[in-house]
């Protein structure tokens, strides 16, 4: 039999249904894996007791014939950006160290209500600001993959780096991530797993520690496209507590997987073929086009003319929203506090001690672009460019049904390799940010290996609220790629 930690969610569901395994078996196997892989630093908080209690409750339901569905008894990891009632939630920041939410985020609550088993809270870049998981107050996360013949640790990507490492390293069957500019898709590509950012509004943001509210969106991180469809089904849904949650029924995403891509029009944006593109990435993209064409899809050349302006627009909009959202950390109501002679000094000391350097940098940029005299030149300008980027996609979808691009400009890099140059780090998200600005669903599927043995991802972008077509196309891509490489540590 397959090792319990090698199951997909779909396989575990079937094994639970047939009685071949119990939720407790699955939980114990994953707790052991989680404890054996502490060198990866994928978790900030492990919750083994909670996992066993969840698993026993699941087994008891099942014994009474009252199993709740596909996720009942499935061991999952929750990114430490989702507030979990009674379980410390830090956003990987010193300023929230020790914070124990008195409420549950809607997404983690949905997964709990679906009977899933929580193994723990995964590490991330501080406040989800980073592309390498090197900005966490709780230390770097290591990628379970290594370059061939080279044992130096690599970054898992970010910000959902702990989630990606945990899924890739077989420490959980699936994980929740959040994506603001690529924080699900880029680490998924770096760790050889599937990562999906649904349409803005599909998953509730309520109870998710806010970074940039017009961009933040929760999504699934799994080892297969089918598992992503199953997990998203458990996370998504209308929530009156989130004013931008969309009041739409959640489709049966899994049922959409087997439609095939015959006749599907796959857009290939000219602007993503940038000068100096890594030749391995260019070759993988060509391979992806050929795979989809062989499966019956039609390739269509499209243009997204404002692509090169997406990243600079993002680096105005996201820090601006962050500077506003993070104003709440005042050292008074919750979180870390440093005393001061007066109230202003208390704020200033608390925030100086509580925020790391990348978070401080982004708050300062955001404050600058929103400050009197600069608002129109920077923030308003970026919002106008954002409108043009969204319009590019609307026009492209007159000619195609999904868009295929690479996920990242290159494979995982070594720790420290890019941390001295903020802009070099920001460029990691150059291919994922445009879909974020437009609020569109997008997915990264592991599709091949670099010359030195590291996973590479292909990225597909769908129409708003058309996750079903995106899943269908991703399934075809996954079938063609037949990606079965495994990380060095698992």
């Amino acid at each position, binding site marked *: 039999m397959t090792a319990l930690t090698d199951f997909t969610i779909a396989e575990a569901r079937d094994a639970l249904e047939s009685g071949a395994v119990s939720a407790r078996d699955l939980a114990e196997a994953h707790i052991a894996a989680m404890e054996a892989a502490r060198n990866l630093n994928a978790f900030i908080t492990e919750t083994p007791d909670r996992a066993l209690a969840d698993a026993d409750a699941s087994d008891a339901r099942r014994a009474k014939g009252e199993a709740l569905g596909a996720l009942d008894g499935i061991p999952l990891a929750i990114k430490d950006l989702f507030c979990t009632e009674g379980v410390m939630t830090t956003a990987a920041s010193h300023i929230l160290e020790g914070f124990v939410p*008195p409420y549950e985020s809607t997404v983690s609550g949905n997964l709990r209500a679906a009977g899933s088993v929580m193994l723990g809270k995964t590490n991330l870049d501080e406040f989800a600001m980073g592309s390498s998981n090197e900005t966490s107050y709780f230390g770097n996360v290591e990628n379970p993959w290594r370059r061939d013949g080279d044992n130096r640790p690599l970054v898992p990507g970010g910000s959902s780096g702990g989630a990606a490492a945990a899924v890739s390293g077989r420490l959980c069957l699936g994980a929740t991530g959040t994506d603001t500019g690529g924080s699900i898709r880029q680490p998924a590509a770096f760790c050889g797993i599937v990562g999906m950012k649904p349409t803005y509004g599909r998953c509730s943001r309520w109870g998710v520690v806010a970074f940039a509210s017009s961009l933040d969106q929760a999504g699934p991180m799994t080892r297969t496209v089918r598992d992503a469809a199953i997990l998203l089904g458990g996370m998504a849904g209308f929530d009156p507590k989130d004013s931008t949650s969309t009041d739409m029924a959640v489709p049966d995403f899994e049922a959409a997987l087997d439609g095939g891509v015959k006749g599907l029009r796959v857009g290939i944006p000219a602007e993503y073929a940038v000068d100096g593109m890594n030749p391995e990435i260019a070759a993988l993209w060509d391979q992806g086009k050929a795979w989809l064409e062989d499966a019956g899809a039609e390739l269509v050349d499209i243009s997204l003319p404002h692509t090169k302006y997406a990243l600079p627009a993002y680096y105005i909009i996201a820090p601006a929203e962050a500077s506003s959202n993070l104003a709440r950390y005042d*050292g008074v*109501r919750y979180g870390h506090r440093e005393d001061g002679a007066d109230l202003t000094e208390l704020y200033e000391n608390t925030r*100086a001690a509580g925020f790391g350097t990348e978070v401080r*940098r982004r708050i300062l940029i955001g*404050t600058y672009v929103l400050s009197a005299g600069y608002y129109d030149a920077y923030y308003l300008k970026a919002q*106008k460019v954002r409108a043009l980027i969204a319009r590019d996609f609307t026009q492209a979808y007159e000619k195609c049904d999904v868009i295929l691009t690479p996920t990242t400009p290159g494979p995982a890099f070594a720790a420290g390799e890019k941390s001295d140059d*903020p802009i070099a780090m920001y460029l990691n998200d150059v291919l994922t940010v445009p879909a974020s600005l437009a609020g569109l669903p997008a997915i990264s599927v592991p599709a091949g290996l670099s010359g030195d043995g590291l996973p590479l991802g292909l990225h597909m972008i769908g129409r708003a609220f058309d996750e079903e077509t995106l899943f269908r196309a991703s399934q075809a891509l996954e079938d063609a790629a037949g990606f079965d490489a495994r990380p060095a540590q698992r």
Partner: protein
Amino acid sequence: MAVDRDTVIRVARLARIKVPEGDLDTLAGELSNIIGWVEQLDEVDTAGVDPMTSVADMKLRWRADEVTDGGIRDRVTANAPDPQHGMFSVPKVIE
């Protein structure tokens, strides 16, 4: 536009973050680089373009203005670093 030392001091003050003297020059350099880089947006003709203020094309929902919970003072202050008598506390602001 280059961000100078005084601008960093002003912005840090607005953001209520104390920045050590020794970090000011480094931050001025970093912020200048980032601001210089985002200024490539000036190349884009945005005349007549409305700023995108909402991702989804939706009207904000209305709800009844009514009390739906309350009486949970201890839960509200449970994470406060220095709660006193069931209240948040701050340094004295009125002499």
